């Protein structure tokens, strides 16, 4: 029995269709011969399945691309969206049947190499900083997915998001956005949320 262990990267590249036909066929044959490589790939697939479930159930807070959000919508997820320009504020909420809430933060991202995202309260709570977030400078948009559990547990609150450009040892504020959150139950009909 062949006990050779393929590197994880190679197995994942096969799974994601990143290999040419010959290389993929070679790994495929090997996966039928080698129990340990097959088990290793199964584990990767299980992790992937779990990540998918976590995202769809709103348990993951992260930063994605706008194209990725369209993919989620095409899959039938109910997404509440807020679009903000630099300096803008928005009244926001989360409805019981929302799967995810997305914020599109427009910012001048050209020529920026590293962007950090800071979440802060206006009531003096300690800010949370996500360093080196992914962004596409050409689109000029950072697409933020907050964890739904946090949003659903939130009462009336005023939150701030800040995008920082980090260059060498210095940093500068690219843009700030204010979110005036209200629980869905507290909203009357006709409220613009």
């Amino acid at each position, binding site marked *: *029995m062949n006990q050779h262990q393929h590197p994880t990267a190679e197995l994942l590249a096969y799974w994601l269709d990143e290999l040419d036909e010959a290389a993929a066929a070679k790994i495929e044959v090997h996966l039928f011969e080698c129990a340990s490589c097959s088990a290793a790939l*199964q584990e990767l697939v299980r992790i992937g399945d779990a*990540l*998918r479930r976590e995202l769809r159930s709103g*348990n993951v807070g992260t930063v994605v691309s706008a194209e990725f959000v369209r993919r989620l919508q095409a899959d039938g997820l109910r997404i509440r969206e807020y679009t903000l320009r630099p300096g803008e504020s928005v009244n926001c909420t989360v409805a019981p049947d929302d799967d995810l809430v997305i914020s599109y933060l427009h910012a001048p991202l050209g020529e920026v190499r590293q962007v950090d*995202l800071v979440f802060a309260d206006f009531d003096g709570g300690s800010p949370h900083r996500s360093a080196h977030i*992914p962004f*596409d400078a050409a689109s000029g948009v950072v697409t933020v997915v907050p964890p739904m559990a946090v949003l659903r547990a939130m009462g009336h609150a005023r939150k701030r998001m800040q995008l920082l450009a980090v260059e060498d040892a210095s940093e500068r504020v690219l843009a700030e956005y204010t979110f005036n959150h209200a629980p869905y139950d507290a909203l009357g009909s006709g409220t613009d949320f």
Partner: protein
Amino acid sequence: MNRVLSIVAREIYASPVQYVAETQDDDASLARRIAASDTGAEAEFCRRFAPRIRLFGRKWLRSEAAAADLVQDVLLMALQKLRAGAVRDPERIASFMLGTARQMMVDSRRSSGRRERILDTFPVDLIPDQASATEPLDEQRLRHCLQALPERERAVLVMTFYDDCPADALGKQLGLNAGHVRVIRHRGLDHLRSCMEAEGSQ
């Protein structure tokens, strides 16, 4: 035979990751034993090959249910051929199994009548229910470890695995080249698995 395969099917799907193939017989020996009417070997044979076929089915069919069907079809066909002595070279049983899986997958003309005839020969339910086919990881632990990742690694892993997105396509969305995506992806997986293992050992 029926009882044995039913038990085997449950074992296969109840704990796919704990599967370890290192037993006394290699795959070829098992194939030879089945050809010699050793029904005990059939159980082990199914236990070994079901996860491999299922992985192949998931990759190409992108459906857990379709992959489960494929597992059943391929195993039944293989057992039928082995019993009949129709597998010419048991030393190449893995290749035979892959070839059978490929053939069955692309055979769009496969009729339900043919499938029913095979199932009549092996009237067992090899298809597990969906819940047992995909035993979840410890999701609370995974959630904790996921949130502990650097943002960029978390984003790349989530976007990669949501719909099995290759590095070049993901790179275009994030303004990164494919090589950079692979590096972040690899690092993220390492961090995630280390965290899961560390949490698991506590």
